[in-house]
């Protein structure tokens, strides 16, 4: 990989940061600025929100997050394996992956059977 690839990636990253900033500045420049108290209140159909929005939410979402960490790390680990698969000897390499996937598959089966993914 030539260094110009990384330079061009950096340029695109810079652009990605600059474009929204320019858009917001343009919006501020052209848009009106007439603040009223109602306008800056929470979108709640004109009612005063009875409670703060930042409250606790159901634990189900945390379960999904834990599952995500397990399986996404698995996918990340499999990328080098997949990259080398074509150049490898084939079946031994395949077997190693099966052991890895098998353990995770058993885990997934357990999670489903225990009903961790049931949403009432």
């Amino acid at each position, binding site marked *: *990989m*030539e260094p*110009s*690839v*990384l330079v*061009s*990636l950096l*340029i*695109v*990253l810079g*652009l*990605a*940061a600059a*474009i*929204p900033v320019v*858009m*917001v500045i*343009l*919006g*501020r420049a*052209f*848009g*009106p600025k*007439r603040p009223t108290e109602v306008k*800056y*209140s*929470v*979108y*709640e159909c004109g009612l005063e929100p009875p409670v*703060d*929005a*930042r409250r606790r*939410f159901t634990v189900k*979402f945390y379960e*999904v997050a834990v*599952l*995500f960490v397990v*399986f*996404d790390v698995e*996918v*990340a680990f499999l*990328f080098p394996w*997949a*990259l080398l*698969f*074509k*150049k490898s000897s*084939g*079946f031994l390499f*395949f077997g190693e*992956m*099966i052991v890895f*996937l098998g353990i*995770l*598959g058993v885990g*997934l089966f357990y999670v*489903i059977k225990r009903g961790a*993914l*049931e*949403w009432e």
Partner: protein
Amino acid sequence: MESYFTFVSSVLGFEPTSLLGFVGAIAVWAVPITAFVSVVGLVSIWLERKISAHIQCRVGPMEVGPHGALQTLADGIKLLGKEDLVPAQADRILFGLAPMLVFASTFVGFAVIPFSQKAVIADLNLGIFFLAAVGSLEAIGVVMAGWSSNNKWSLFGAIRAATQVVSYEIPLGLSLLAVVVVAGSMSLNDITQAQSGWVWNWFLFRNPFMWAVFLIYFIASLAECKRAPFDLPEAESELVSGFHTEYSGMRFAIFFLAEYGAMYIVSAIAVVLFFGGWYTGIPFLDHISGSIGGTTGVVVENLIGAGTIIVKSFLLICVQMWIRWTLPRIRLDQMMDLCLKYLLPFSLVLLVAVSLWQAFQGPIDGGNSVMGMIMLAATVASLIWMRRLAGRVSKASALRRELPVVKTGL
């Protein structure tokens, strides 16, 4: 291989080493990519309104420009003149940062999508991995937007979006892995070049499991883009507008642009991974520089390539829109069930099947064309069969077609 940088510099006569040449090269990159992202946004928003209108027996926007083609531009100018609101209770820093993060995660993806063999800004050899990594940054931006707004609709939308995006990332990643196993490379350029030649060399027809891998990728990418039937984070009837309820003016426009940019990104990835990227599927057209010769030949070849991948991607975007305006939104529990109980085990099995196929085939790539032709024939046959089936179903609902076309401007 000559990069886009040196190629464009040599065509335009820049000296890449001098300072002027460097500034020129930045302009050569920056202007087209920015213009392209905006044009993709404008065209796909117009397409969405036209397609939704025609599906619902309307005509959609007609007034601004031919067939309303400039309507999106007019809307953008209108958004420019709107007040930039930050709610009083909002966390101002995160509220400002969120649309930028969402936009950046989409925009950076455009850097590694190849338009032709040479017209790719950064030909990373970790292309797919990079796209998966920056794509998941979007979830953080969405959660930031929902949390900082201090509005319960925004927060619910953000939680739903985060759950959906992270869980569909797993089947998405597994289907990317299946393609990496077949291609033996993560560079989008190498993957495309492995599909050169006739149509049946495309990865979609490489082995009997690729169609299923593509379908899983497509479903997961719909969820990643928060498109219907997975538009729970923005469910208008439940959550006002989801995580961007409190956003107005240009900040809202940034979210909107990023959303339609992401649709192009996922479609372009699908085209590169399964539909032969910039290759037309006709070897003569793909190597036209051999028969024209010189710089003209190279330019024409690259233009054909860029046109091909853009047309293919927009066809997939049209399919995404067709699905959005055909299927009803699913519930949260159905969404999670579909991902973790069906797509995830199924994509694990598919990964095993694809790698087993590859292991039997060994490092020799013989027999790919024969397999490809068989798969292409099977695909065409099943498409004809499905068309027949659909014809029989739609005859039963022929009444719908007799409804009068109502002319409205949306």
